[in-house]
């Protein structure tokens, strides 16, 4: 039965028309317009972060006490803050920190969590039981308090925020990857390749891991937005990047609400930047999930 199906697979693949990369992109844009909008936002943000030195009109750290609380104008598009620093320049540089923390924290959290989940599923027994209880503990531990504590232990710095944001991601990624690996392990085709004499390594590398990659990528993109939000929340609470670093969350903390009546633009633009960035990643993540999940494909 298995040979019968396998003998048809190459023929079916040869019959299916091969699409070029351009065609694939056009199809994604046509079928997933919200996902395409998300990619545009992400690319825009990456572009701004990469060339902030060239694009930004002012120095993000330099204050001009003659231009404190300047309203948005042709000179200062987003206005200035209480130190006379250009808000647009600081928002542009803030994209670097948000992207750095977002990417590194979600990559580290999902990779460590994914590996632990895979080990848990493959080895089973006592290792699985132990790792599962450890993940239970991390899940039950209130996320923000854990991040608060880690940030307090390591001190307020961007690289420490990455650790504080990454740790709560680990149990979530571990759960998702473990569940997928366990269900893949039970599939008849895995049993079949085992029966045909494939080595344990071949079964894991060629047949199980490729099926775990899709949920891993979905998890990764889903966590990116959350990681940017977590960085902003920690910085807002004074446990993220320290002044005068141009971090979006930090720009919203302290003086921003105090001067809300006098200079609302100080609180307005960093908030829009955070929301837009997270929105872009969520749009992209959602569409990617739909595209990669066979159950949702074509819906």
């Amino acid at each position: 039965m298995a040979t019968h199906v396998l003998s048809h697979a190459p023929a079916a693949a040869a019959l299916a028309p091969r699409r070029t990369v351009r065609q694939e992109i056009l199809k994604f844009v046509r079928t997933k317009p919200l996902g395409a909008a998300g990619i545009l936002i992400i690319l825009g943000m990456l572009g701004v972060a990469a060339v902030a030195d060239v694009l930004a009109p002012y120095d993000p750290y330099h204050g001009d006490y003659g231009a404190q609380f300047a309203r948005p104008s042709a000179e200062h598009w987003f206005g200035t803050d209480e130190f006379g620093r250009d808000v647009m320049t600081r928002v542009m540089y803030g994209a670097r920190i948000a992207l750095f923390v977002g990417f590194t924290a979600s990559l580290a959290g999902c990779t460590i969590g994914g590996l632990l989940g895979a080990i848990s599923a493959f080895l089973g027994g006592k290792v699985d039981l132990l790792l599962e209880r450890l993940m239970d503990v991390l899940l039950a531990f209130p996320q923000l308090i854990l991040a608060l504590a880690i940030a307090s232990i390591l001190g307020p710095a961007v690289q420490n925020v990455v650790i504080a944001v990454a740790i709560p991601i680990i149990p979530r990624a571990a759960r998702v990857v473990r569940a997928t690996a366990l269900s893949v392990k039970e599939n008849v085709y895995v049993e079949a390749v085992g029966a045909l004499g494939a080595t344990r390594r071949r079964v894991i590398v060629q047949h199980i891991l490729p099926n775990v990659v899709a949920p891993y990528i979905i998890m990764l993109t889903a966590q990116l937005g959350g990681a940017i939000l977590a960085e902003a929340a920690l910085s807002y609470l004074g446990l993220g990047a320290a002044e005068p670093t141009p971090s979006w969350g930090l720009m919203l903390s302290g003086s921003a609400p105090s001067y809300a009546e006098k200079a609302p633009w100080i609180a307005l633009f960093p908030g829009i930047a955070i929301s837009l960035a997270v929105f872009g990643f969520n749009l992209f993540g959602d569409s990617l999930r739909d595209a990669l999940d066979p159950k949702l494909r074509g819906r």
Partner: protein
Amino acid sequence: MRTYVLNRLLLIVPTLLGVASLVFVIMRVIPGDVTLLILGGDQAGRVDAAQIAAMKHRLGIDQPLLVQFGTWLWGVLRFDFGTSLWSGRPVVEELLIRLPLSLELAFAATLVSVLIAIPLGMLAAMRQDTWVDYVIRVISLGGLAIPSFWVGILCILLLVIYFGWGPPLEFTPPWVDPWANFQQMVWPVVTVGYRYAAVTTRMTRSTVLEVLREDYIRTAWAKGLREGAIVVRHALKNAMLPVITLIGTEFAFLIGGLVVTETVFTLNGVGRFVVDAVAHRDYPVVQALVFLIAFGFVVVNLLVDLTYAWFDPRIRYR
């Protein structure tokens, strides 16, 4: 079913013990000495060593760590979470002052979000890939993207600028003055509830979509049933299980939402209390709060799992 419940109950013990150990270790690793923070020292910040030793003895933190941990755990078993190092009052008493506000905020946010999210999620699924679906999806994605503390800042900003309103300084319980309580709580509820509603809307949409493609729904259409009857009577009941689960798992996020929302609106609730306690190195308070939140999380998830098992017999017999 009994074995399933027993197994799930037994698993709670190692989880809570793990959380208790982790929070105990973390609080001892955080730099900063609570005795120095309390004593303050002279103008140069110097404190007499004898004074420090006396204070440590008074607070009971001069004991070996294992003894401190054992004493604390024994207290937890008797529902005695010790005394706040900072205020000198029992932790339970401190919590009871702040709990009504946080509970009201959490329950109101959950209620409002569920009442909005379930109809919206259903509507989006029924009108998939139309402008109605797109608008609902964009609004719900917005709820996930916009930081709750920024929503709070915007609320205050708009209310201050246009209505000259400032957040009341003191919490008025609903049973004392319902109108004053409503005025104080409505914006924090909106702030916390928007995110909650966004998550629930997305989950409802995706589960209703999945259920709508089941064979029995096709049969219902073939029988000539009206759309309303199919969705409410057949689809919604089956689609609700993952939504119930979500309400449980979102509990942990709700606590995070409370921390920042209470900070923005200067509400004297449990969320703000925990931030202050971490800053003050008030070990008993942080340990008690983390333990109680974890306990709440575990219990809510257990109830969700049991509800799930009750609804879906396949889980019970596994």
